């Protein structure tokens, strides 16, 4: 067990070192988030108010836009997480090093989650600045963001491991990830809406659902890793 | 007017299920002919 955790941590640290030196997050992923913010502002008139004039329509739909951005970024980030390995057959090398596949998926999930969290901070701050989003219940929002991030990272890593080593994975990945993650997206949007504006009475139920998704998808990858990555 | 929808619904199902059944049976026949009898079945009947 200790070995599993230690190896997962080593792989995560290695991936973080690669990301630090390649600067893809800073130069591509975060700018992607900002571009999305701007596109939403172009697509939806920021002046339009919801009925009652409490806030702009853009601020109202910001939770949905926010999580769509994160979901799309997930495709980029988790795709990259495996591309780093299969570029030079390193997935084989990890296996030959006697690493348990569970450690590989756990390490990768952690790194994907960290990158998504970074993006969420930037896009979240941007939404507050540009869309006039304000936060009612920061603690609730934190729980929502944490569990959604873990669920997305776990599922993204798991589903991309399903197609690892297959040449058409860049196009097949989204087909697997997007429909599977739609329930998480729906829940995250509803729960964030509740955390931001206190709208809807279902925020708490959705938050619990998100925590369940996080546990489920976080564990699923680690449990099934052996079946997925052995003999790639 | 309602009967139109009913016929449409049952019609779609009939066409899709029918096509699937026919193609399955056909594929079975073509493949079966290409194999020796002892390779054809998972179990003896």
């Amino acid at each position, binding site marked *: *067990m200790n*070995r*599993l955790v230690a*190896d997962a941590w*080593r*792989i995560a640290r*290695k991936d973080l*070192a*690669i990301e630090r*030196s*390649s600067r893809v997050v800073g130069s591509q992923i975060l700018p992607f988030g900002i571009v999305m913010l701007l596109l939403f502002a172009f697509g939806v008139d920021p002046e339009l108010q919801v009925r009652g004039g409490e806030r702009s329509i853009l601020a109202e739909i910001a939770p949905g836009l926010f999580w769509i951005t994160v979901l799309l970024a997930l495709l980029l980030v988790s795709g990259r997480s495996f591309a*780093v390995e299969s*570029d*030079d*057959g*390193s997935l*084989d*090398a*990890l*296996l*030959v*090093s*006697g*690493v*348990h596949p569970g450690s590989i998926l756990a390490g990768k999930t952690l790194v994907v989650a960290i990158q998504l969290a970074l993006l969420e901070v930037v896009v979240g701050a941007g939404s507050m600045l540009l869309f006039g989003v304000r936060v009612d219940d920061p603690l609730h929002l934190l729980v929502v963001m944490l569990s959604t991030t873990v669920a997305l990272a776990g599922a993204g890593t798991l589903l991309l491991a399903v197609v690892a080593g297959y040449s058409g994975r860049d196009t097949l990945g989204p087909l697997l990830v997007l429909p599977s993650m739609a329930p998480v997206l729906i829940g995250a949007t509803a729960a964030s809406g509740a955390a931001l504006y206190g709208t809807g009475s279902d925020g708490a139920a959705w938050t619990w659902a998100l925590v369940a998704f996080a546990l489920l998808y976080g564990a699923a990858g680690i449990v099934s890793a*052996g079946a997925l990555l*052995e*003999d790639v | 007017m309602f009967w139109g929808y009913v016929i449409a619904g049952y019609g779609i199902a009939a066409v899709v299920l029918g096509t699937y059944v026919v193609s399955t049976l056909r594929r079975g026949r073509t493949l079966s002919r290409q194999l020796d009898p002892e390779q054809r079945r998972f179990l003896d009947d």
Partner: protein
Amino acid sequence: MSEAASPSDDGTVPPVASPVARLRGAVCVLGGFPALAGVDLDLHAGEVAWLRGPNGAGKTTLLRLLAGLGTVRQGSAEVLGADLTRVADRRWLRRRVGLLAHATFLYDDLTVEENIRFWADLHRSDPGDVDSAMARFGLDGRLRTVPVRGLSAGQRRRTSLAVLVARRPLLWLLDEPHAGLDAEGRAMVDRLITDATGAGATVIVASHDADHMPALAPRVLDVAGGVVRDAPAPGAES
């Protein structure tokens, strides 16, 4: 996790008694194609075997199979006592072999030292072994902090070799180890092979290098059409 359990279930390295590997009619299928079409092979401890044969003969697949990668579709295969048809056994085996493949298994964005330390750490190699391996391949100087993307092909190969040496495998599987190396590098590989067998390990080399190999490898195996045969004794060749 029955991670530490060895195939012999005593948790220790099995005595490297003969045979190191025993394959009987082993078939390995890659993408629907039988890359190995029934291999019979016995390897003994301390042996150096040279796999030769045309491209596509199955040399690389055989090395990967012996490394615990890939599945045996038909027949049987046992390496270091591990039954290759069983997942747990393959996992156990992988930690005890060293594979030098065509791909260098290095991360472009990490430095030479970061790469070597990462792989050695995963392997729980002794830090002293890592230092001496780096020194042995001349990687302890300026090259140490250079990202791998800035290395020449030969320098990459040396880095991979250093990783391998730090692992102290029981079975060395080398795929074209001399390729891309200068005279000095080739001499290093030769010394490496002799040292490894001296320490009791077994070495299998797939190579097209007909100049170098005969002196190194007493045993020559011809690979063709996915099967392996012992080459006739040198004198018998007409």
